[in-house]
């Protein structure tokens, strides 16, 4: 938490006195450019200009270290940004290959905010099959696609034709994204496209989201599969207190076989939002699995 605030402060610093190296100078926005430039232009700033990428606690995500940390994912389609996000190039450990990463702004993504905010378990990981409800234009979907990698699949469902267009376009370049322009309330309409999945991520911003998710789960989610839901309190009930809304949503999920594991508020990135993670039809004996 609190990172957002800090980053801003730093940004201001960076503009004034130029990078003193190390952790201080350079705002968020400058980082990508600064580093990339440093590399090609002979790196006046010395060590600080080098991109250092470390794996995040959650597999599939990475952190770019340096002036200030930011969340990145390994770009599945090097050389291309999806929505104008910054790209960083780092050298692999042996210094041979160049690996490209895309910066993931938690202010623009619920999942990104969840990961930065320190969520305990993240079922979106390399090789996973993910059903993503409410894909919108595919900004977050593209990062999920990075995370699951070539072995995984993201089925992205979005019903707005306007967003569906962007989503489908994005998916053209990413063979692990299956775009589906349908209403998530009617999973039978896309049942033939989807096999069983390991995880459902939902961000449809609808009052009946809990039902939408469990309905989809009953079609496509494995037992012991994961459910991740971003709940916007306002969307469910704008009069009740957010906490109460979250609690009642979790209750609805529980009734339909989702065992809630964790609830995380997405402050300061998204106001009155919570990310809820749970396990579907958890079998009692093999909980460890």
């Amino acid at each position, binding site marked *: 938490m609190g990172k957002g605030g800090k980053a801003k402060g730093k940004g201001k610093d960076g503009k004034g006195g130029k990078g003193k190296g190390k952790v201080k100078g350079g705002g968020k926005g400058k980082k990508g450019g600064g580093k990339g430039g440093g590399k090609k232009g002979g790196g006046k700033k010395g060590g600080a200009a080098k991109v250092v990428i470390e794996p995040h606690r959650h597999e599939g995500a990475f952190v770019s270290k340096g002036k200030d940390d930011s969340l990145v994912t390994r770009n599945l389609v090097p050389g291309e940004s999806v929505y104008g996000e910054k790209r960083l190039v780092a050298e692999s450990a042996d210094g041979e290959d160049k690996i490209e990463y895309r910066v993931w702004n938690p202010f623009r993504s619920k999942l990104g905010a969840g990961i930065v905010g320190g969520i305990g378990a993240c079922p979106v990981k390399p090789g996973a099959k993910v059903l993503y409800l409410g894909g919108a234009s595919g900004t977050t979907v593209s990062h999920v696609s990075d995370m699951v990698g070539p072995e995984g*699949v993201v089925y992205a469902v979005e019903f707005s*034709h306007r967003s*569906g*267009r962007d989503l*489908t376009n994005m*998916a*053209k370049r990413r*063979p692990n994204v*299956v*775009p*589906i*322009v*349908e209403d998530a309330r009617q999973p*039978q*309409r*896309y*049942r*033939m*496209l*989807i*096999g*069983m999945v390991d995880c459902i991520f939902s961000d449809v911003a609808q009052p009946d989201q809990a039902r939408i998710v469990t309905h989809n789960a*009953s*079609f*496509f989610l*494995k*037992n012991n599969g994961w459910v991740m839901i971003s709940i916007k309190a306002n969307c469910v009930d704008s009069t009740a207190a957010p906490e109460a809304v979250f609690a009642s949503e979790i209750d609805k999920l529980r009734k339909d076989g989702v065992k809630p594991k964790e609830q995380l508020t997405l402050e300061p990135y998204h106001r009155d939002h919570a990310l809820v993670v749970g396990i579907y*039809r958890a*079998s009692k004996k093999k909980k460890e699995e």
Partner: protein
Amino acid sequence: MLLLLETPAGYALFTVKNKKLLKADADSIFENFKSVTDASRQVGLTAFHKFEDTKAAMEACTELTESSVGKSLKKFLKKNVVDAGLADSLTVLDKQLGININKKLGIEVSVMSDNLREIMRGVRLHLTELIEGLDEQEVRTMSLGLAHTLSRFKLKFSPDKVDTMIIQAVGLLDDLDKELNNFAMRLREWYGWHFPEMGKIITENLAYAKVVRLMGLKTKAKETDFSEVNVPEEIAAEVKQAAETSMGTEITDEDLGNIKTLSERVIELTEYRASLSEYLKLRMTAIAPNLTFMVGELVGARLISQAGSLMSLAKHPSSTVQILGAEKALFRALKTKKQTPKYGLIYHASLVGQSAPALKGKISRVLAAKLSLCCRVDALGDQVEPTLGEEFKEYVERRLATLEEGGMKSLSKGISRPTAGKHQKKPSVRGSGAAHSAEDDVVEAPKKRKAKAVEAEAEEEAEEAPAPKKKKKKKVVEEEAE
């Protein structure tokens, strides 16, 4: 028990071998499908039909999404169930498809139960392994290809497409108006240094710009023939006179050049705006003739734009149509328990505009009621002539006339509702405690979205001819209108 499962590669028909599953505890069923070997003990593949090519797959899937029994599915089921003499009942994931299969082929389709759902999940888990000759990777590629084809197809034939043209056009029109106004103001300001008096004489922006372009420096006023730009003689004379005594400053040719360029821009934009507005009018009369007839293309297009599409506008109840565009005021009013707004975009319709201020609210309600009927006919019917619109416009006009005449006395006969007159209310009473019930009234509205034309009429009746039990509501509506 037979199971029908659809994959991107083809249809698969399974038989449940382990009959115990059907009676077992639903929660334990999935346990029996842990591995492929487990699963193959529970169910067996009875038949599989592979789609010949992407085109066939695409066709089949489109039919499946529509829940209709397409040719290939029919053939498949006929061959493998009916002709094979299988009397078992069939389980289908899509209820509507099940009904249609039963109708077309007479196959008994079982009702979805928890157990069946679990079995289906179990089969899906190992779907590719259970179907011989199907490769996981192959299915993946096929589903990807199919998904792209389907969504491309879908987006191409997006039903909102025509509406989008209108929404974009009206949006651009608004942008243009704003820009035009800015430019024209700038032109007046700029040229005003040179010839301040002209601003007062020629008030119309386009004429102003044309005069600037034609005349240039004010010293040329004398020899300029203003009739070229359709400026009436007396105004031309006035300009000439003012030019003689003007107290504006001198400007250079370079200054003038730039001012002229700006005036050209203003003229161009105005012309462009006119052609855009013509285009909008054509489009609007084509897709929503009745709506356009009632309120004109501009207000009509804004209403559609606000609702997102003509179809969604048609789904709105008239009380929502009435205040569409005034959402901010509405929610503020609801929050603070003040009176809700009486009109939104509809305010700019000439029917509302021409009525006396005290009647504006009432008329917008009447108009909204008719408008929502018009939208429904436009969206769902295939009328090209605004017959309904004509009828309704006349009705609203008459209604307005009656109201203006004095009164809130009963209106003899509504056109679409001959009996309405009987129940017409006496002059409205200013009720108390309105805020609360007003809220009920408005909050209720969106729930009725599904209203079909029939319901719409009922709704209208409710508004115009309140049955006794609706009295309270009526009172509120009246008051809103006051």
